[in-house]
C-alpha cells in the first residue's frame, strides 16, 4: 500500500509536467491551428537561459524564474512574427516545416552555446520529503504540481475573464469573422505563441531538476505530453491536464507493478497508449467528435 501511494504521488508529479506542456500544445493549436514542433525545444532553450541567469545553476532564484518567463514570452512572440508570420499564406505543410526548422535550430544552438553535457538545474523547493504514513512525499513534487496548477488557473482566468482573452478565443474560432470585427488576429497569434512559450518555460524549469538539463531533455517529455493531449482529447484544456495526470500515474504504475516494463520501455508504452486511444476513442476523454461540413 505504501508503494502504491508512493507511485501515485510520483505519477501525479510527472503527470503535472506532461499536463502543462500538453496545455501549451493545445493552447497554440486552438489559437493558431498549427502544431508547434518547436514547443519542447523552446522550453528547453528558455530553461538554459534561466540556468545561465542563475549563475550556471548554483542556486534557484525566483527573480530569474520570472525574468525567464518574460524572455520566453517575448521570444515566443518574436519567433512567431519573424519566422512563422511570413509563411502565413503558405500551406499548412510549410508552416509546420518551419516549426520543425526551429526545433532543429534551437536544439543545435543550445548544444553549441552551452555544450551537450548534462547540467545540474536547481529546484526551488527543498529536497527533504514529508513523510506521511511511510509515504515519502517530495516537496519538489508538490511544489511542481502547485506551480503548474497556478499557471493553468491564471491562464484560464485570462481566457475567461479578460477582453484580450475573449479576442483570442474569437480569433481561434473564426479568424475571418474576428478580423472583420476589428480583432488584430496576427498580433493575437504572436500573443498565443508568447503564452505557450512562457508555459513551456515553466514546465522546462520544473522538469529540469529531475531529468537534468540537456539539449534533448524535452524530446521525451514532448511525446508524453502529446500522448496526454491525445488522451484528453486534443482540443480541451481540461482534458490536457487530466490526460497528463492520468498518463503520469499510469506510466509510473506500469513501471512499478508490471515487471517487463523497464525505464527503456516507458516511451514505447506511452506511444502504445497513444495508438490504443486513437483506435478505441479517437476523440479522447474530453474531446468532442468533430463533424465537418462537406
Amino acid at each position: 500500500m505504501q508503494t502504491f501511494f508512493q507511485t501515485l504521488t510520483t505519477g501525479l508529479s510527472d503527470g503535472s509536467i506532461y499536463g502543462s506542456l500538453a496545455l501549451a500544445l493545445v493552447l497554440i493549436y486552438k489559437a493558431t491551428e498549427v502544431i508547434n514542433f518547436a514547443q519542447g525545444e523552446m522550453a528547453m532553450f528558455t530553461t538554459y537561459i534561466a540556468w545561465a541567469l542563475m549563475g550556471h545553476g548554483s542556486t534557484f532564484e525566483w527573480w530569474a524564474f520570472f525574468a525567464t518567463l518574460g524572455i520566453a514570452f517575448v521570444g515566443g512572440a518574436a519567433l512567431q512574427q519573424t519566422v512563422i508570420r511570413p509563411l502565413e499564406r503558405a500551406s499548412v505543410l510549410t508552416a509546420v516545416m518551419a516549426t520543425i526548422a526551429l526545433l532543429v535550430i534551437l536544439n543545435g544552438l543550445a548544444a553549441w552555446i552551452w555544450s551537450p553535457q548534462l547540467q545540474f538545474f536547481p529546484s526551488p523547493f527543498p529536497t527533504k520529503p514529508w513523510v506521511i504514513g511511510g509515504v515519502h512525499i517530495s516537496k519538489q513534487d508538490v511544489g511542481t504540481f502547485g506551480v503548474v496548477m497556478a499557471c493553468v488557473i491564471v491562464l484560464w482566468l485570462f481566457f475567461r475573464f479578460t477582453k484580450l482573452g475573449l479576442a483570442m478565443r474569437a480569433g481561434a474560432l473564426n479568424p475571418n469573422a474576428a478580423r472583420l470585427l476589428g480583432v488584430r488576429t496576427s498580433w493575437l497569434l504572436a500573443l498565443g505563441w508568447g503564452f505557450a512559450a512562457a508555459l513551456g518555460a515553466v514546465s522546462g524549469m520544473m522538469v529540469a531538476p529531475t531529468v537534468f538539463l540537456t539539449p534533448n531533455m524535452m524530446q521525451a517529455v514532448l511525446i508524453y505530453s502529446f500522448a496526454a493531449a491525445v488522451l484528453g482529447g486534443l482540443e480541451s484544456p481540461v482534458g490536457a491536464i487530466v490526460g497528463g495526470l492520468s498518463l503520469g500515474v499510469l506510466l509510473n504504475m506500469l513501471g512499478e507493478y508490471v515487471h517487463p516494463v523497464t525505464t527503456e520501455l516507458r516511451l514505447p508504452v506511452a506511444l502504445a497508449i497513444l495508438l490504443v486511444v486513437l483506435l478505441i476513442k479517437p476523440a479522447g476523454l474530453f474531446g468532442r467528435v468533430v463533424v465537418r461540413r462537406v
Partner: protein
Amino acid sequence: MRRLRNPVAFGVLVLAVVLAPFLFSNYRTYQLGFVGLYLVALLGLDILTGFTGQISLGHGAFMGIGAYTTTILVVDHGVRDLWTIPLGGVVAGVIGLAFGIPATRFAGPYLALATFAIPLAFIGILKRFPHFTGGTNGKNLPQLHPELGWHTNPSIWFYVVCWFVALVMLPLAFFIVRGRFGRALRSVRDSEIAATANGVSTAGVKTAAFGISAFYCGVAGSLYAIGTTYVNPDTFPIDLSILLLVGIVLGGAGSLYGMLFGALFVEFIRLTWGPALLNLFSKAHHIDTHAPGSGLVVYGVVLLLVLYLAPAGAAGLVRGLSGRPAFLRRKEDPSLSDPGLV
C-alpha cells in the same frame, strides 16, 4: 514529347550511374552508394509527404528497422546479405502499416507529432532487448560479399548494389504515383473533404502511403547496414529522420527526380558541405566549426531558407529555369488548398 520525357530522363540517369565509378575515386564512389540508398529512402518519404501531404518525423526509425532486420538475419541466421534487402523493406513496411492504421486517423500535423515518437521508442526497444539487438553496443556485420568479379573492390560493389536497387525503386515510385492510386494520394493532400466526397477512403490511402514509405525506408536501411557494416541504437537518431525531411523539402516535395538533389544533400551535408558552410561563416565570426550542434543549426537554417526562397525545392528551381520565370506565372491561391476554410 511529354510522354517521352520520363524515359529519356531515366536513360540519362542510368548512363550517369554507370559512368560515375569510372570518374570518381573509390571513396567518392562509396559515398555515391549512400546517395543511392538515401534516394530510395527519400522516394518513399516523398510518396508520403510530397504526394499525400502527411509529414513524418520518424522515418529514420524505419530505416533502422530495415538495418536491424538485415543485421540480425545475416549475423544470427546466416542469411545471404543480398536477400535481406527486400526482407528489410517488408518488415519495415508491415510495421509501418501497423502503425499507420491508428495513426493516420489524425488530421493534418498530428500525424507528424505521433511519428516523432517512433525514433525515440525504437531506441528504447533496442536497448530493452539486448540479446536480440545487441543492446547499446550494437552489432557488427561481415563485409558485403562481392559477386561478379568485383571482389577486389568492395566499395564499387556496394555502389553497384545500392544503385541497382535505387534504379528499380525509382520507376516503381513513378508507377505508384500515377494512375488512380496516385490521384487518390494527391486528392488527400489537396483536400481531404473533397477526396472523401469523391469516394476516396482517406484513412485507407494514408495508411497505404505510410506502409509504402516505410517499405522504401526499410530497403534503404538494409543497404545502410550493409554499407557501414555496423549498427547500434545511435545510428538512427531523430536527427536522421529530420534530415530526411529536409532532403524532401530541398529536393522539392512532390517531385520524384527532385529527390536526387535531396539525396546528394543528405549524404554530403554531414561531412562535406555543412562544415564548409560553417568555415565560410566562421572566418568572419570565429566560430568553432567542430562544435556540437553546429551541424543541426546548419540543417535548420538551410531548411528555413529553402522554405522562404524556393518553396518548391530544387525541382521547382529546375522547372522554373525551363519554363516562364516565377513572377510571370499566376500565383496559386492558397485558400484552394486549405481544407480548413471549406
